[in-house]
């Protein structure tokens, strides 16, 4: 059972040969293939990460733009509203003023007309009373 002979050195040489051959046909090419695949995957991952980052930055940019646009539109709306409010206020004030003046004018006119009417009425009263007197008393006596 424990009979050592030339099997031992020959087996050692044979094993070393096997190691050398396997190194050439198995370890080296497959290690290279594995490393290349690792590199390939890492590359792809890196590019994917990059594009993801790019997409994210784009999204952020667009979001910022949207936010800016929204703010702008809001400010425009606010401005327009303020303007509209101002215009309405102005117009209302103007219209009120106009109405006021028209009212005043109308009142004045009415007053004037009343006065003229009263004046003519007084005149007429005067002449009528004079005529009445003439008629009653005779023209000679009225003077």
């Amino acid at each position, binding site marked *: 059972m424990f009979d050592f002979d030339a099997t*031992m050195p020959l087996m050692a040489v044979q094993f070393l040969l096997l*190691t050398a051959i396997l190194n050439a046909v198995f*370890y080296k090419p497959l290690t290279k293939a594995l490393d290349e695949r690792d590199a390939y995957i890492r590359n792809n991952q890196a590019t994917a990460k990059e594009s993801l980052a790019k997409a994210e930055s784009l999204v952020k940019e667009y979001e910022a733009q949207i936010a800016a646009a929204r703010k702008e539109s809001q400010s425009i709306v606010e401005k327009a509203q303020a303007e509209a409010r101002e215009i309405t206020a102005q117009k209302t004030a103007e219209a009120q003023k106009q109405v006021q003046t028209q009212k005043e004018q109308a009142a004045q006119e009415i007053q004037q007309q009343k006065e003229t009417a009263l004046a003519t009425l007084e005149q007429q009263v005067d002449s009528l009373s004079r005529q009445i007197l003439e008629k009653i008393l005779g023209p000679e006596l009225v003077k």
Partner: protein
Amino acid sequence: MEILGSLTILNTFTLAELEVGEHFLWKIGNYTVHGQVFIVSWIVIGVLLIASLAATRNIQTVPGEIQNFMEYALEFIRDLTKNQLGEKEYRPWVPFVGTLFLFIFVSNWGGALIPWKLIQLPSGELAAPTNDINTTVALALLTSLAYFYAGFKKKGLGYFKKYIEPTPILLPIAILEDFTKPLSLSFRLFGNILADELVVAVLVLLVPLFVPLPVMALGLFTSAIQALVFATLAGAYIHEALEGHGEE
């Protein structure tokens, strides 16, 4: 051998027999070699070469079935080596540790799974190459050489400082360690595989059908673990030589 002889006489009619220490000897010049070990080891080497050639003949980024399988094996080996040697040093040692693992693993499983008894040899029997002490001692000595080489390459003659650090009192133990390492490595592998085959053989002697199956399954499991242990220990020894004592 006489004891064995008296044991097998009882079972002249059985399907299986115990054969320990019988070899199919070849003569090369003045030396003898164990032919059955080499035949099976060539088959193992052939399987490994065919599998790796099939996997690497047409390497694609998206692997096919066999390439995927071999890549899985390679990643397993790389993880094993990386765990033992660390991220920085492991790459040059992947082929050695990995081939240790692959060769022992395929040998063990080949010895257990292929019905070698169907092939008759003039003497001895075909079995896993790792159940011959020559093979395991060869692998263990190569491991020893590997860690000496690793230590010398990294530190030059400063490698010997590890024997007298932290204190020269431990020098004999440190030297003894260099002998016990390959001894325990080779005997562990040899003993496990041989014990496995003996247990299966004894059970087959007693009950030829079905009963040995669970033991065979256990044997497959242990032999896989033994391959892992051998490779792990080789990695650990190389790491120790690279790092020196007490720097963990």
